[in-house]
């Protein structure tokens, strides 16, 4: 365990501390180990006490052909001494391991930003694969940036020469050389990486030594190279943070831990039924290693079997959980209806990705909100929650478990590919601060003459949970309409009306906390309303706008269904409501439907998270301000005005283009 003592600097202590954050993007071939490099840089950055956010951006292909544009894998990290909530808009530093990595990413680099390129990879063949007609390192086309190119490949080969590795294996150490240089640039400690390499290659000590040598060589290069100009050491002060124990966590890890915690708070073993799908599989992987926490994981034959096995486990008295991404969630739809109809607890995690159909498996989107709220046959209400960040996943997962067991209902938890993969520092929660919600199974008859009524209801309208194996409570349940109370098959008109109403009322009656305003006043000229992973950019944009004196508030909705009781009244306190979403306006539609408020969409479905500047521009536009924030919105990242949405309600709908 490392200790990062935070010293409050004079700048921080002043009313307007200097904001210091740096965005670094590593880009290379998908075989170059960019995600690994980024992950380790993240770790060293966390250990240095910086706040940070990351954005892994990789292709769907496992090993796309080398050197191609579509095979580029990138990892972006934003770190600094202020609260970091996004992976950053535009990189300050781009580390390009090959021409394709440069080509795909360089346009996003801030003007004046630094490019570090491995010139050893800028061969004619690789340039051609990246569709460069001439070498950008020498043709002057990179003039608006600072360029540092050296032969990282050769330098790596030299550094690992003593270990006698083959050429291919030796070149694999390139990413560690680059990491060493990056660590030097930002004054990061190498020791955690050295420890990690030793542990990773415990069975191949030679490889560990070679990688460490490459790491040290890259570091030494930065230290001793006679390079002036851009390559000078940056020191980013530690970010102020609540005291406590910290670790980095991805959304997938935090969800897994939250589910385990939720099951323990409910006093239940957990059964997880899953089927491999990007980007949700990580949850299955994490849980498969936690068997000692009374977790059974089951890799089913398909998505349908995954949810059905979880329903079966819930019926038998465990906490059933299933997880997938959009296409898999679609397959689970009928079974969700069964869980609603049989009123069994179940948690369904949807790590959303770009859609429809197979869509963009590795890119992020928030376009499954309709599917979560409405996407089943019949009147099939189900609570829906959404996590805002990797760290937030922990609490939201516990909340999903609580609602599921207390209301005997399936609950959907929405995250997305960005949250699932991104890492951020997380203050390890103290479990004693969470109130347990132990499940009480039915053990005794609940009606006269020793009868058991499986659909008798408590004050929350929840039915009793009697698990098979309990003497005296034999009963039958099923997806067919049943009589309230006895659960016997009953198609009669009055009963179906009653049961439909009671299912609706039960879910509508789920108690959710009142809606708070994240930033700003509870009334005013403009509210920016978000959900899920857009929290970061919205929060930063509203913070910046408020520092400029703009009357804008940030409202973030965790409980998508049912919505907080005060939300409608709250939204009506603002002259304008803008809803930024990575879809074509789904939450906006729900808000309009539920509360008759004039919510307007700000939409983006490029597979990339919102930029702060895009939201700042929207705020300026709405408030009649002038221009965007620090950087201009990139029109190539934004939808055409006509593509915003088409439900006929968008006269005057805000489009970011109109800000430009």
């Amino acid at each position, binding site marked *: 365990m490392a200790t990062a003592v935070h010293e*409050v600097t004079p700048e921080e202590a002043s009313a307007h501390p200097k904001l210091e954050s740096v965005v670094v993007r590593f880009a290379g071939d998908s075989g170059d180990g960019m995600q690994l490099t980024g992950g380790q840089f993240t770790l060293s950055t966390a250990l240095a006490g910086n706040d940070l956010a990351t954005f892994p951006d990789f292709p769907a292909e496992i090993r796309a052909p080398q050197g191609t544009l579509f095979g580029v894998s990138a990892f972006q990290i934003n770190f600094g001494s202020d609260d970091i909530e996004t992976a950053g808009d535009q990189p300050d530093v781009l580390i390009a391991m090959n021409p394709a990595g440069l080509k795909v990413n360089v346009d996003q680099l801030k003007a004046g930003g630094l490019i570090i390129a491995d010139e050893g990879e800028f061969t004619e063949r690789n340039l051609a694969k990246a569709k460069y007609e001439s070498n950008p390192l020498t043709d002057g086309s990179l003039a608006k940036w600072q360029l540092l190119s050296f032969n990282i490949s050769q330098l790596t080969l030299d550094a690992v020469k003593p270990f006698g590795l083959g050429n291919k294996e030796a070149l694999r150490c390139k990413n560690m050389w680059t990491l060493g240089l990056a660590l030097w640039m930002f004054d990061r400690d190498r020791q955690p990486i050295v420890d990690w390499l030793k542990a990773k290659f415990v069975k191949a000590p030679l490889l560990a030594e070679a990688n460490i040598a490459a790491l040290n060589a890259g570091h030494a290069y930065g230290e001793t190279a006679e390079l002036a100009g851009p390559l000078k050491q940056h020191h980013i002060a530690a970010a102020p943070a609540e*005291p406590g124990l910290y670790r980095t966590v991805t959304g997938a890890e935090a969800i897994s831990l939250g589910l385990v915690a939720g099951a323990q708070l409910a006093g239940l073993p957990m059964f997880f039924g899953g089927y491999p799908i990007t980007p949700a599989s990580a949850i299955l992987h994490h849980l498969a290693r936690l*068997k000692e926490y009374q977790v059974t994981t089951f890799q089913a034959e398909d998505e349908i079997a995954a949810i059905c*096995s979880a329903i079966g486990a819930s019926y*038998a008295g465990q906490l059933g959980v299933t997880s997938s991404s959009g296409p898999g969630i679609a397959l689970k739809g009928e079974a969700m*209806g069964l869980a609603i109809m049989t009123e069994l607890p179940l948690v369904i995690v949807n790590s959303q990705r770009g859609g429809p159909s197979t869509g963009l498996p590795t890119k992020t989107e928030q376009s499954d909100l309709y599917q979560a709220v409405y996407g089943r046959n019949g009147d099939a209400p189900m609570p829906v929650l959404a996590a805002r960040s990797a760290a937030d996943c922990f609490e939201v997962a516990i909340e999903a478990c609580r609602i599921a067991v207390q209301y005997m209902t399936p609950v959907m938890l929405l995250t997305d590919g960005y949250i699932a993969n991104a890492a951020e520092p997380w203050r390890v929660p103290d479990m004693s601060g969470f109130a347990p919600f132990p499940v009480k199974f039915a053990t005794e008859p609940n009606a006269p003459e020793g009868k058991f009524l499986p659909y008798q209801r408590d004050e929350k309208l929840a039915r009793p949970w009697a698990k098979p194996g309990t003497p005296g409570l*034999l*009963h039958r349940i099923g997806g067919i309409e049943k009589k309230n109370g006895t659960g016997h098959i009953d198609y009669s008109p009055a009963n179906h009306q009653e049961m439909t109403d009671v299912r609706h009322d039960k879910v509508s009656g789920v108690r959710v906390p009142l809606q708070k305003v994240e930033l700003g006043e509870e009334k005013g000229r403009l509210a920016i309303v978000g959900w899920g992973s857009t929290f970061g950019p919205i929060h930063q944009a509203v913070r910046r706008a408020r520092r400029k004196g703009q009357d804008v508030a940030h409202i973030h909705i965790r409980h998508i269904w049912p919505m907080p009781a005060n939300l409608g009244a709250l939204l009506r306190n603002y002259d304008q409501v803008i809803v930024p979403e990575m879809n074509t306006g789904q939450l906006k539609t729900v808000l309009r439907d539920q509360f008759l408020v004039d919510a307007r969409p700000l939409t983006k479905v490029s597979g990339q998270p919102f930029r702060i500047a895009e939201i700042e521009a929207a705020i300026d536009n709405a408030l009649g301000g002038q221009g965007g924030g620090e950087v201009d919105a990139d029109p190539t990242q934004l939808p055409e005005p006509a593509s915003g949405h088409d439900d006929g309600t968008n006269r005057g709908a805000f489009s970011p283009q109109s800000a430009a």
Partner: protein
Amino acid sequence: MNDMTPITTKPKDWETDQEVRWCPGCGDYAILKAVQRTMPELGARPENTVFVSGIGCSSRFPYYMETYGFHTIHGRAPAIATGVKLANPELDVWIITGDGDALSIGGNHTMHLLRRNLNCQVLLFNNEIYGLTKGQYSPTSRVGTRTPSTPLGSVDRPANPCAFALGSGARFVARGIDVHKNLVPVLKAAYAHQGAAFVEIFQNCIVYNDDVFAPFTEKAQAQGNQLWVEHGKPLLFAGGQKGLALDPERLTLKVVDVVDGDASGVVVHDQTNRGLAHMLVEMPFGPFPMALGVLYDDPAPTFDEAVVLQNAQASEGKRPDLQKLLSQGQTWMVDKAPHVI
């Protein structure tokens, strides 16, 4: 832990107060009675017994059994039963399904349940028709079956349920007939088998596919066309006048006459012989009799046992400490309160 001690019950104890809603004369009534007669013979406890079904006429079955019951969705009973059994391996799990439910919409789940070898009983009511949806042809309907959806006769070749089960890796495969007294011993053998026990029950749909099995179920036809196999006994039928012998040149079975009770040359049934089971289930009816009874029974480790064992081994000697789990990985302390901006 559930109380697992066998108890004494009567068939009546397994009946619910629900009105049975199958068509008068439906074969399902006979199967229901056979199951209710079997349960006391097993010493089974109603509270430890779970019937899981999919969708179709047969899948109404759980409502009529005084046990725990789950009438699920079309084709998915094996998947739900898997969750039930893994969550509580002490439960006796029976899956009730039909030819459409198990082999069409739920074929994938049936296959995987059998290959994983979940310890449960699968009773497939095969009537070669979709009854509940009013008579369309099913995946087991013979070529030429005329139904509302195939007015000119079906053209696709049918699935053979027992061959499907063997091909999927089932370790117990049996056949019975709805109204035949031998159904009870077949069900008892299925229950005794540790692992997935697959039982195809020929069930007459009196409304949409009446008498489709009459060529071997009719009284007059039964003796000549039913071959009830018994482990360790020669494969005889037609009152012992005929038997099945191996045709060594073609490596298939052939029908031979048994003269003067001399059954030498007739294959002796070995229920652990997978190859023989394949031959028995693939015999074309007509030239051959219908093989019935326990065709294959060769237990193998079950999925639920393996899961329980692996969970136990992985947990052995570990003291689960959630707080410790949360604090895993590389951590750091922040020990000063933040300044206020």
